[in-house]
């Protein structure tokens, strides 16, 4: 076998290994929980959380952010921040609805940047009025040093973008007097 053939074969083995480097896993909810935000106002009422627009992750596909995973991260972030009295499973005084409208992921790359947009709506369930709504954009880049396997790097980029998004949303909600 010539040295050129050996090099070509080695390159193919590396390409296959990187493609098979692991199955894709969904963004983990605990990795999407926001750091405690600077709270301007807190509410003495409870809130329930509803999320839509997320996607399930298939093993051979790309890492995705699921409705359940994002909702859990949102609940945990609210609890950690103390923004509301408590997070109710359903029927809270306030309802925070989040629609994951955009998760722009790269097909491949050494540095992977995920750009995300979530439309949030906070409704007072007693009056039925929308007290706050906003389209929040965020992004996060995961580099080669963060994870060697592309599937893991994409998951980290997803988680970072979601975490930044939740953090920004809670900061804005805390600025309104409920």
């Amino acid at each position: 076998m010539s040295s050129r053939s050996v090099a070509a074969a080695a390159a193919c083995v590396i390409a296959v290994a990187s493609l098979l480097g692991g199955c894709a896993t969904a963004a983990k909810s605990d990795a999407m929980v926001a750091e405690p935000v600077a709270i301007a106002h807190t509410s003495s009422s409870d809130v329930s959380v509803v999320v839509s627009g997320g996607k399930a992750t298939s093993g051979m596909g790309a890492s995705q952010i699921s409705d359940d995973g994002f909702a859990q991260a949102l609940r945990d972030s609210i609890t950690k921040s103390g923004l509301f009295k408590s997070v109710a499973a359903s029927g809270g005084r306030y309802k925070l609805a989040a629609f994951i409208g955009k998760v722009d992921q790269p097909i491949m790359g050494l540095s992977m940047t995920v750009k995300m947009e979530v439309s949030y709506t906070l409704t007072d369930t007693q009056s039925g009025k929308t007290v706050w709504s906003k389209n929040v954009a965020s992004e996060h880049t995961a580099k080669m040093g963060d994870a060697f396997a592309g599937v893991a790097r994409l998951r980290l980029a997803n988680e970072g973008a979601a975490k930044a998004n939740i953090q920004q949303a809670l900061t804005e909600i805390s600025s309104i007097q409920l």
Partner: protein
Amino acid sequence: MNRLTRIGMLLPALLLTACATSNSARAPDADLHKLKTFYVARLPADERGIEKLIASRLNVMGYQCTSGDLQTPASPVDAVVTYQDHWMWDITMYMIKLDIQVHDGATGAILANGEVSRPSLQRKSPEGMVEETLGVVFK
């Protein structure tokens, strides 16, 4: 080139030959039938004029649509459309994925989205990708 090398070169190609997929989602209570006027904001990185293809297709679908470089339209519209096109090379460049979002013209909230992915062997022209993705969004 020996047989081992040939087989090795085929493997990545086989692994990258996935199926075409499409997805869409709609915000709770979003009613796209109410929308009449649209503006497609050009993605700053797009130099292929995909925004014009989207606007053209929306006009064919019976909506009033314009496009431009500004991220917000000069005059009020019912909805603003944004998109992200992803390209790959395989003999020639082709669009592997197109994402489209429809935003409320007044609030900027995303009302609906759709995405279509097509691998090399099932590639479509940019016009075909736009038509398929808008079909998914408005289905």
